[in-house]
């Protein structure tokens, strides 16, 4: 090579390179400015999808604020409160050269692929002027999930855990890879709080005021089925939703963005159901799913909202819990089979026992199938981590019997009803009544949830949860308005007696009430009750439910001697469904207060309810407290 060329080459190399670098930098800077200008012109920061992607929400006194609380979610330091600054910073972040990304970190284009996709759609990025980054991990993630559908899964009520009393929703991502009829292998996206305390009181309080972080996580659906169906024995309802391929992709890209951030978890507002709705809105911004909710987002209400959208829900599938599966088998049993099952559960006989062997082969199979469901459920309740949950001897005995128990197609009995068929969770009540002295009008409102006199379609039929139920009475003759009752929290869980499981019923009540057994001009007391009891339903679908309780009770009031009384009561009662719409309740109790102001008296109640529609019912109540009687006729509207 001639030295001259080398010199010339070097010369050019020296002066050319800085120029290219410089001009490249300038091109980039110019293009960024151009895009930012365009974005401003098009007012992209005001677009609904931008607000959905960044979780912006108009807040009282605070203006536009993002619900996301992990600051890595934003590219601009003002991102949490300023959609425009976030959008400009996001555009800018897309231009960061790959060499400036710390090893092990993802490029912003890969961290925020939904934002990238949407901004690219709006601004049509020029790949010559904006380097498009390859996102290897994201690509493999998307490829593995390969969405073909999305399903909202509702886990029914779980009364043994305050966090699950209202049910739970998660989103299943149905994959092309797993194929139809292979739902267990799909993934589920779940939003939940990450609690930092074991203390029940703190746990409830922190959940209410939003001091747990909430995070999205993704699990194989079968782990969720094991958890809800088998461990907690909750029925699942799967709502298969209709989305286009593009919408599903957008939703997943957005889910990817959410994986790294957290939100303050609010038990009643920004909860699992709220965030699942957000995901669906990102998929299809035309859906306005969160709009109807103000005070609280109750899982059942979100399911109703989905059902109300035209053509969104393709199909509803029931997935029975392990105990529902067992009870389904028990319903088909004759008395002999039931008796043998009971004895097996008690450990009195094994599959080798002649009493069992004397059953026909299909009967034996039916009994063992139910027995194995029972053992599976029981073993999951134990803390042991042994591998075998059902003794091999039982499994082996079952394996020697034919596969099908009979020729009939097994239509599954539904032990819970579709949550979207239930009444609204808000209730407004208007009543007119009379006591010994005068007539009165009654006005009441509560935001949540269900009481045992309401129609129980879509709800757990043996329990009630009432929260913040305020009732005012206007007494017509004395022309006074009084707070008659304010139930802060009232929970009743009647667990009907089952020969295989003995689970006590319990109830808990915290309220401001009127001292009804006294004539103190409708004076109020603060009252707390906790009790345990037994309840009985002749069979799963019987219209009759009997119960009895023994309660501990305390009341505080200015009008009581020593300002309080402490005691208890014994109550017996029954609910009876005369028809689908007509329910009757009869109850009586004997109250004994031994500390503070002591007193003993009886109470008696007769209530009847007639449901005019899903959301409207009429009730007549006759109550007697000691010597004071009252009667009320009311209309209750759920919404």
């Amino acid at each position: 090579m001639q030295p001259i060329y080398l010199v010339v080459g070097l010369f050019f190399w020296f002066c050319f390179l800085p120029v290219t670098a410089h001009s490249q930098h300038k091109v980039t800077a110019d293009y960024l400015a151009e895009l930012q200008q365009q974005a401003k012109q098009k007012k992209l920061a005001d677009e609904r999808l931008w607000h959905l992607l960044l979780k912006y929400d108009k807040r009282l006194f605070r203006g536009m604020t993002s619900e996301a609380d992990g600051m890595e979610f934003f590219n601009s330091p003002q991102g949490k409160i300023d959609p425009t600054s976030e959008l400009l910073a996001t555009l800018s972040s897309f231009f960061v050269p790959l060499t400036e990304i710390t090893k092990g970190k993802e490029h912003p284009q890969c961290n925020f692929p939904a934002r990238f996709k949407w901004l690219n759609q709006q601004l049509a990025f020029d790949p010559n002027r904006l380097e498009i980054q390859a996102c290897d991990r994201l690509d493999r993630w998307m490829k593995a999930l390969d969405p073909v559908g999305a399903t909202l899964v509702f886990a029914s009520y779980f009364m043994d855990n305050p966090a699950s009393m209202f049910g739970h929703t998660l989103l299943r991502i149905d994959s092309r890879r797993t194929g139809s009829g292979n739902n267990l292998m799909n993934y589920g996206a779940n939003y939940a709080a990450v609690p930092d305390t074991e203390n029940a009181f703190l746990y409830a309080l922190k959940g209410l005021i939003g001091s747990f972080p909430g995070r999205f996580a993704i699990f194989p659906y079968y782990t969720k089925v094991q958890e809800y169906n088998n461990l907690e024995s909750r029925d699942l309802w799967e709502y298969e939703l209709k989305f286009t391929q593009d919408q599903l992709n957008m939703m997943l890209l957005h889910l990817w963005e959410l994986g790294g951030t957290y939100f303050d978890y609010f038990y009643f507002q920004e909860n699992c159901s709220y965030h699942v709705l957000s995901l669906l809105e990102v998929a299809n911004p035309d859906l306005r799913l969160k709009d109807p909710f103000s005070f609280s987002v109750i899982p059942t209400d979100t399911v109703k909202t989905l059902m109300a959208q035209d053509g969104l829900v393709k199909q509803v599938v029931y997935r029975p819990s392990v105990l529902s599966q067992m009870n389904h088998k028990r319903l088909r049993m004759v008395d002999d089979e039931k008796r043998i099952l009971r004895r097996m559960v008690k450990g009195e006989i094994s599959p080798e026992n002649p009493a069992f062997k004397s059953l026909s082969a299909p009967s034996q199979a039916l009994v063992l199938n139910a027995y194995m469901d029972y053992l599976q459920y029981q073993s999951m309740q134990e803390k042991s981590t042994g591998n075998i949950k059902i003794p091999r001897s039982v499994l082996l005995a079952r394996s020697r019997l034919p596969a099908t128990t009979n020729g009939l197609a097994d239509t599954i009995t539904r032990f819970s009803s579709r949550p979207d068929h239930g009444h609204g969770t808000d209730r407004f009540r208007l009543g007119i009544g009379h006591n010994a002295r005068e007539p009165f009008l009654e006005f009441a409102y509560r935001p949540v949830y269900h009481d045992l006199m309401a129609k129980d379609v879509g709800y757990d039929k043996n329990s009630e949860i009432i929260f913040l139920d305020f009732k005012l009475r206007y007494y017509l003759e004395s022309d006074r308005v009084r707070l008659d009752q304010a139930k802060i929290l009232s929970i009743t869980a009647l667990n009907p007696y089952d020969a295989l499981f003995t689970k006590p019923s319990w109830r808990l009540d915290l309220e401001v009430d009127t001292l009804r057994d006294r004539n103190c001009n409708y004076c109020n007391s603060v009252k707390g009750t906790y009790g345990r009891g037994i309840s009985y339903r002749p069979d799963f679908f019987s219209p009759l439910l009997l119960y009895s309780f023994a309660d501990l009770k305390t009341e505080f009031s200015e009008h009581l001697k020593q300002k309080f009384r402490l005691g208890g009561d014994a109550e017996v009662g029954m609910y009876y469904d005369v028809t689908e719409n007509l329910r009757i309740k009869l109850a009586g109790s004997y109250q004994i207060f031994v500390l503070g102001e002591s007193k003993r008296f009886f109470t008696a109640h007769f209530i009847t309810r007639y449901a005019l529609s899903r959301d409207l019912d009429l009730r007549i109540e006759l109550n007697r407290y000691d010597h004071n009687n009252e009667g009320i006729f009311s209309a209750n509207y759920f919404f």
Partner: protein
Amino acid sequence: MGRYSRIAVAASLFLLPVSVFAAGYGAAGCGLGSELMGPKPGASQVFASTTNSTFGNQTFGITSGTSNCGDHGLISMNKEREVFAQENYTSLVKEMAQGKGENLSTLANLYQCPAASHQEFGAMVQAKFDSLVASDQANSTELLSQLENQLTRHPTLAKSCDIKLSALN
């Protein structure tokens, strides 16, 4: 015992039912917590629900600390059978003894057995149950290796299903 301490005792009684709930495990449900498969009874620890906190390198959702997950936060393809069998072991052996069930056909799918052969698959595992679950201490790994043994020997399933894992990758 003074009056106030009696009141305190009475008041504390009302807190009992709540603490009873919390005693179990880290909850699940709308919200207040869902440490899936964490300290729960009878559940394994294949999945930890915590996300990797370093955002740039975030592994979405299931991260692991186990070798079952890929760096994309999902289960590695070549571990799918193993993890499925482990997580659903009780359901699986129950359905094997019954000769049919959803978990069983999912397993058949994981072995690439066509839907038409699932009934045969069910009949085979039921007939060979004795050797598939050899003892009360048997585990999911043994179950799968026994199953693969039986599949290989089976006149039709050996051909219609894909037994070797490499076929998946």
